[in-house]
């Protein structure tokens, strides 16, 4: 009874917020968190679409693939966070700073 456009709008809002966060913040940890936020917004949208498909074909197993995909996205997100945080710790050990500004070796 909730139209899909509501979930669309919500998910896109969250995605935009996350995207703005990645650009605005200079702390590496916070940047990673904003990326997680973006991932979650996509998860939400996927679940919403899976329910939409189910609503169109009620009684069947339509739409279950959406939720499987969400599960696997979570799997990948977890693995990525683990590795990403360990890289961050290495970075911190080298420079004792968390400011992304100091990752400017790309300039040369």
């Amino acid at each position: 009874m909730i139209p899909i456009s509501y979930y669309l709008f919500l998910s896109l809002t969250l995605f935009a917020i996350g995207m703005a966060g990645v650009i605005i913040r200079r702390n590496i940890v916070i940047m990673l968190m904003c990326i997680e936020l973006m991932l979650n917004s996509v998860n939400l949208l996927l679940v919403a679409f899976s329910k939409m498909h189910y609503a169109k074909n009620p009684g069947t197993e339509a739409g279950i693939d959406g939720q499987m995909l969400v599960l696997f996205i979570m799997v990948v997100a977890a693995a990525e966070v683990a590795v990403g945080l360990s890289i961050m710790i290495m970075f911190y050990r080298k420079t004792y700073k968390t400011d992304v500004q100091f990752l400017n070796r790309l300039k040369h």
Partner: protein
Amino acid sequence: MENYIWLIPLLPFIGFVINGLGRHVLPKSLISILGPGVVFVSFVLSVMVFFAVPSGPDAAPQIFHFFDLFNFETIQIPFAFQIDALTSLFMLIITGVGFLIHVYAVGYMNEDEGFGKFFSFFNLFIFSMLILVMGSNFLMMYIGWEGVGLCSYLLIGFWYHNWDFTIAARKAFIMNRIGDIGFLIAMFWIYKEFGTLEYREVFSMLTTANVAEGALIGITLLLFLAATGKSAQIPLFTWLPDAMAGPTPVSALIHAATMVTAGIFMLTRCNELFDMVPFTKGIVAWIGIITALITATIAMRQDDIKKVLAYSTVSQLGLMFAAIGMGAYVAAVFHVLTHAFFKALLFMGSGSVIHAMGGEQNMNKMGGLRKLMPKTNITMLIACLAIAGIPPLSGFFSKDEMLLNMFIGSKAVWIIGFIVSVLTAFYMFRWYFMTFHGELRNKEVHPHESPSSMTMPMMILAVLSLFGGFIGIPAVFAANGHKLNNFLSGVTGVHEGEHAVSASVEIMLMVALLVFVVGAIILTYKMYNGKTDGEASGIIKLFKNKWYVDEIYQSAVITPTENLGTFLRKYVEKAGIAQIVFGVGSLSVFLSKQTKSIQTGHIGTYVLLMVLGIVAGIGFFFFGIL
């Protein structure tokens, strides 16, 4: 004939290449055989062509096609030769006299360190001149035309360490070039009107194609402009006296016998075209005769031994153009032939004198060479008699035929021509007496006779000057004696067969000229035997200063052009164009500096730009923005 016709220009070209590439490595003896040798072989082949070529009133020209210069859909121009009586005659002159001058140059240039270079340029000149006369269309003639202009420049400025000589060479080339513009435009115009550049096709279409009178006049005037450039007539004649800066063999070959006659050749080749426009022929005649008069007066008071001959060449060419203007093409070609003989001989003699006097060219410092250089003396005397027109030497026949045709055509032109002929005798014998008679005025030098490599060609030319006139005996003396007229009539039409005047008038004209000429010789004998000129004053000063033509050109043409160039360089080039060109460079540097600032190395910036790109991509993809 097609077996060997292509060898005739090819051999001098090979000589040019070999002499040019090997000018430092080949020994002098080899070059002195190779240089004249190729010309000699070409001469022998030209003699064979001469006997094989069809002649007489009904002769048709032979065309030899080799390859195509342009072969597109809309335009085809072949590299082909057209051999007829006129061509073979000129080929003989070029290779024959050219060979003699090559032999002479072996002796003259013997101590020069640019020996090999000289002969390579000389051979290139023979090649270009042969292409000029042998071509079957206007473009081939133009190729040869440009080639001889180039060789003239190279050879005049041969001693390039001397800045004045280089300026003279440049002057010659530029004045030639002005004429060449006329040739080019005429060629374009001919192609536009007739659709082809081949001589045979153009001339056969003259009566059938409806070409406007104005177009024909324009074409012929432009062609004549080119001829004035190459053959040194008004207004483009001042380069020839300056061209005496080159070595004497150059003056002999190029500026006496061959290149300057290219104009006459072109007009004779196009005689059918010119016969359709009497207006142009009138202009040709008048410019020719006025040039002849002016330069004859200048020659009367020149002190340089070669400059007198240079002005004499221009004057004789003027007479030839005047004859063409009267429609007497055969007479003009006849005079080309005899003039080649005695003018080349005169230049060789002057070169011999200069060589003996150690480089001195001022006649005031010469004199009395008669006893010291006997061979030179006798040949020079023969040449002067020929050019003055004393019978039975060659000059008599050719000059009298020209004057006769002038008399028939226009009395005004004839009277000036008569005066010019008398003046010719005057200045030539002044030249002779000042140089060879009297006492040697310069006591330091000890002149001696020239080596045989120089005197042998002179003697051969002297014999030709003596007897060469007999191919053109006019009808008053011997019926059917004008062999040359018969030979060329296939090309020029049967123009001079009929005479509009009676035999007695003709004889009277000859006698009158002879009387005045002999009188001029006696006068110069009295004035210049052992003496030199006094101070110049009044009109004589005008003659001596070359009628101030050079100065007029300098102030009217050259200085304004130079000023224009300076103005353009300072203001347009520096402020305008250079700014634009540099501006483009600094603009790109500025843009790249701005663009470079994107690469900050800061990850946040890169993320921002990535996202910006994605958003723009979405916008473009889905909404067609941009």
